[in-house]
């Protein structure tokens, strides 16, 4: 199949280093992968094209790159899925990390976040004589997170990391969850308190991007939500993030739909004058443009509120 790989190249040692695109025309089988294509280029056309790869089987996590705008593993991405009828495929290095050369990114920011969550088991006291006795269900559950191959694909496409590189990010948070959910780990409270800080678990905007791109179905966002739930049930001191969730639920229970101004005020806290005052211009702007939604007593409960409350009762009974 006639395929054009348009590869973003960057040579830091060229006299005036600037990224540029280079096109390679190849004949590829639809079942071949983007990595096959890139290796073919290296082997037959241009051995200066630089990338990382090793296992060819979506196991080692080396070959993360952006393909047609989304981060994925080149070795797991078939030509047919990205260019069903042949034609152009765009290949670029991962985002949110500096580029070293061509498709090779500097993963240090990624690893720095991983290290930040103290990613090692911290049990209480000396280990038992033999193994820790724990339910298979717990271990089975953890295989979902341990499946992470540290490829960086989720970090590349994380929308929060893009605007705030201090955010721990999906991979590190998923890694943190791996310990919080491990019955052998005894540092749960300390971990949750750390994750509760700004740049931690409350900074995710739930954009789903990481869930969609992760090649190993780790579903980092779901792990972050699970961390939040654990944080709240462990009663880590409330933060904007956790209060936001609590107030949100409360309002829905009362009214059946969101009262946004109330949510904002309650989340920030009624005595938080500084933050509340800072929101005043936004409120005035919204009011002028008739965008300020009805709030407080003006915000009525929806007609079906009874069934909403029944749902709440049922859910709460079950947990």
């Amino acid at each position, binding site marked *: 199949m006639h395929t054009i790989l348009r590869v973003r190249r960057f040579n830091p040692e060229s006299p005036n280093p600037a990224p540029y695109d280079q096109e390679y025309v190849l004949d590829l089988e639809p*079942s071949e992968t983007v990595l096959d294509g890139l290796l073919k280029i290296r082997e037959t056309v241009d051995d200066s094209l630089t990338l990382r790869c090793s296992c060819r089987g979506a196991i080692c996590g080396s070959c993360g790159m952006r393909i047609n705008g989304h981060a994925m593993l080149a070795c797991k991405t078939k030509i047919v899925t990205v260019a069903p009828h042949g034609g152009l495929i765009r290949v670029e290095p991962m985002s949110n990390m500096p580029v070293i050369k061509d498709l090779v990114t500097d993963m240090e920011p990624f690893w720095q976040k991983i290290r930040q969550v103290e990613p090692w088991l911290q049990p209480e006291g000396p280990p038992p004589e033999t193994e820790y006795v724990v339910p298979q269900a717990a271990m089975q559950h953890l295989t979902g997170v341990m499946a992470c191959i540290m490829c960086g694909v989720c970090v590349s496409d994380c929308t929060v990391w893009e605007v705030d590189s201090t955010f721990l990010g999906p991979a590190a948070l998923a890694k943190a969850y791996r310990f919080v959910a491990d019955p052998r780990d005894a540092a749960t409270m300390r971990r949750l308190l750390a994750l509760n800080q700004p740049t931690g678990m409350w900074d995710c905007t739930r954009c789903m991007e990481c869930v969609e791109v992760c090649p190993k179905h780790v579903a980092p966002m779901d792990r972050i939500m699970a961390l939040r739930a654990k944080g709240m049930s462990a009663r880590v001191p409330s933060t904007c993030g956790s209060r936001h969730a609590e107030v949100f639920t409360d309002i829905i229970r009362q009214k059946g739909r969101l009262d946004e101004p109330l949510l904002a005020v309650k989340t920030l806290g009624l005595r938080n004058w500084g933050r509340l005052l800072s929101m005043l211009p936004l409120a005035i702007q919204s009011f002028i443009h008739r965008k300020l939604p009805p709030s407080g007593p003006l915000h009525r409960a929806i007609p079906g509120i009874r069934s909403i409350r029944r749902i709440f009762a049922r859910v709460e009974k079950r947990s």
Partner: protein
Amino acid sequence: MATEIKTYDVVIIGAGLAGLRAALAAHEEGVSVAVLTKVYPVRSHSNAAQGGINAALTDRGDSWEEHAFETVKGGDYLSDQDAVEILAQEAGRDIIALEHMGVIFSRNEEGRLGTRRFGGQQRARTFFVSDFTGQAMLHVLYEQILRAKIPVYDEWFVTSLVHDEDGACAGAVAMDIKTGRLGTFAAKATIMATGGLGRVYEPSTNALICTGDGMALAYRAGAPLMDMEMVQYHPTTLKGKGLLITEAARGEGAYLLNSEGERFMARYAPTMMELASRDVVSRAEQTEILEGRGVNGCVLLDCRHLGKAFILDRLRQIYEEAKTFANIDLTEEPIPVRPGMHYQMGGIKADVDGRCWDPEGQWKGLVGLFAAGETACVSLHGGNRLGANSLLDTIVFGRRAGQCAAEFARTRLAPRLSPAMAEQDHRLIQSIIAREGTGETVAGLRYTMGTTMNRYLSVFRDEEGIETARRVIHELKERWNGVAIKDKGRIFNTGVIAVLELSMMLDCAEAIIHSASIRKESRGAHFRTDYLERDDEGWLKHILLYYRPDGPPEVAYLPVRITRWQPQARVY
């Protein structure tokens, strides 16, 4: 050209399971440790191990003697039995230690460690994590390295070992791939843990980084390679790139069928069937294929009767692999498989403490060098490795090598190296970059080498084929001098690395060929159609090769160490 010199008590080359386990053990002994690796630790090939790790937990009624015996029998009696006994005895302790570090081993109903069955064994004694056991172990060991704050030089490519004035190994020269600069690492003890050499063959189940570097580096520096002819072909690899379908599939009950739908293993191994040792199953498959009962050069692996839920739970990774790479739904269709190059039983000769020299002086070697993992040959696996014994090898002998290296380092003074140590490697790299193209490429030469090896040094071998391969490899070594690359930069020059790796692979290929030409019998993975029988009178011994730069290697022999199992005929 002067380079910076960094000094540690123990330097470990390789961050796979063997290297990381060794690093932790040495660190716990209280010496200073650093790890050098050409890829990030978690990218190491150990993460490809799907199936599991063997251990006889004696407190639950399994017997280590049985595990040891099956290892010896699997190895066709070429294993050194003292080493096998240590492996089997210490396995349980090491598995529990891994569990304590955090490995999420699968459990049974009581919440204790659960097992599955693997080839060549009567009993289920393989511990596992779904079907990514190697990855789950590697990531946890790396977690422990982070906890211990052991310095890891990742993306540093080791280009040679260095000697002190007395000729002992005193560390290594390595290139920082990100900058292209060379650095010298001075060490009282050096541990080689660089993994396998799969890429010497095409196709192979091994990752692209498995280029036998450590074997070639140690060999060139004076340590002998042992039993290099023993190259394992795995019975279930995919056509094309040669990706592996784990033995766990058969361990969990999958069948092998020929084109007539017959479970042909009944004719070759009536008792153990699909779970006979790998050399036996691979030969059976190849025979079926050669006699016309194959399906497009393959036989069929059938999982359907296991049921969808079971497959998704216990064999999820290969389910996905089959979907992605062969476009086959394992729950609905059998998958074509064939024998493919998988593992090197031979390697750098090491004793049970990882030492690459013999304090008793029965054989020479390189004082100060240790080896562990697939790159080493403690001679556990003999002529054929049992499935799930290799991870165990990395863990048990990685730990022992780390402990012994630390102890050894305490008795030594830090070597004084001159900054000019790296000069030779620097010049070599410069000359590779400067070469003008003659049309020779790394890819071209590697492909010729790989397909030659796969043709003549595979499941069946004979003198004529071995000699043909020798000529081809000899010629490729000449042509290597003409290989040029386009990338003229220093930063992340993967071209230079590929050229260096190719030269290491050619040295490994030569060693395999030489050993295979010497062993005139059939034993384990080394099956010669011109010497059909195992010959215990003549060949119950190891072949050691010493590197000679300008000619064939010097050959030496060591008797196999037999403790309690006298060689018997091997039936499965």
